């Protein structure tokens, strides 16, 4: 056996061993890529990236707009509608006059009724 032959055997043995090792390793690798099992490695990386970016990005982006608009407005809070700046004068004096007039008219009517009753009573007797 020459030295060359010995080297070839060694290389062949190494290649066969490597092939056998690859044959054992490959199914695991394939299963790792598309099977449902790969819980340990990839799930922890992928799902956390997606949700953590999406929710945090969408609320924080629109928030500055209203804040800026409110802060930059010259009138900080705009009132609703118009202003109640009047209620008309002279309600009091006319109310007094109406009450007084009503009182006088009632007294007058009562007096007139009393007169009629007395006259009728006088006519009978």
């Amino acid at each position: 056996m020459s030295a060359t032959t010995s080297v070839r055997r060694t290389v062949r043995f190494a290649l066969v061993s490597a092939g056998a090792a690859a044959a054992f390793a490959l199914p695991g690798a394939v299963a790792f890529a598309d099977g449902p099992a790969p819980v340990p490695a990839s799930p922890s990386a992928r799902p956390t990236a997606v949700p953590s970016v999406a929710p945090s990005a969408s609320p924080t982006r629109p928030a500055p707009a209203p804040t800026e608009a409110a802060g930059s407005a010259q009138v900080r809070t705009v009132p609703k509608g118009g202003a109640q700046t009047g209620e008309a004068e002279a309600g009091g004096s006319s109310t007094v006059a109406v009450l007084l007039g009503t009182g006088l008219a009632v007294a007058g009517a009562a007096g007139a009724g009393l007169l009629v009753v007395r006259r009728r009573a006088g006519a009978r007797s």
Partner: protein
Amino acid sequence: MAAGLLIAGGATLVAGRSPDPAPVRIAAAGPAGQVGTGAPPSTAPTGTVAQLPLSPPVRLLIPRIGVDAPVQGVGLNPDGTVEVPPLERPEEVGWYREGPAPGQVGPAVLLGHYDTRKGPAVFNRLPGLRPGDRIDIRREDGGTVSYQVRELRQFAKNAFPTELVYGDTAGPQLRLITCGGTLAGNGHYTDNIIVLADPLPPGR
């Protein structure tokens, strides 16, 4: 005697019946001023007037209609409408403190009653203002800001021009607000009268 009482009562009733007050209308509108709604707001002059630092107004003077009145800050009512000075102090003017003070950039808004049950109030003669009339406002810091009436506008309260009154402006502006129109069933007037005024340069 009884007939006399009846006649006296009837006469008193007739005399005591208060006639409906005449509608309150603005006397003179400005260049674009008019009664009603939908009119585009007139534009303020674009001249440069220096802005003053914040200092609350303390007194309002309008020489042509004899106004010389104290000013107090007002805010918002719980329903979101603007507060007005208390009816017990009809001579008082309210400054809407959620907006700029007179002299600052933006619409400074002052409100006053047209009248109360006791009689005419501080802004009773406001509808008689005319374009060009002078308005002076004394500030807490001792300074005075002067304005000149540009125009008067009248709007139904249910069509109040919020943007015209409270919207942003390029420079200092003044709005005076009181009541107008006719007396509604709720005891309040139907309209608001709004005076728009531009600042006068210092020293004028």
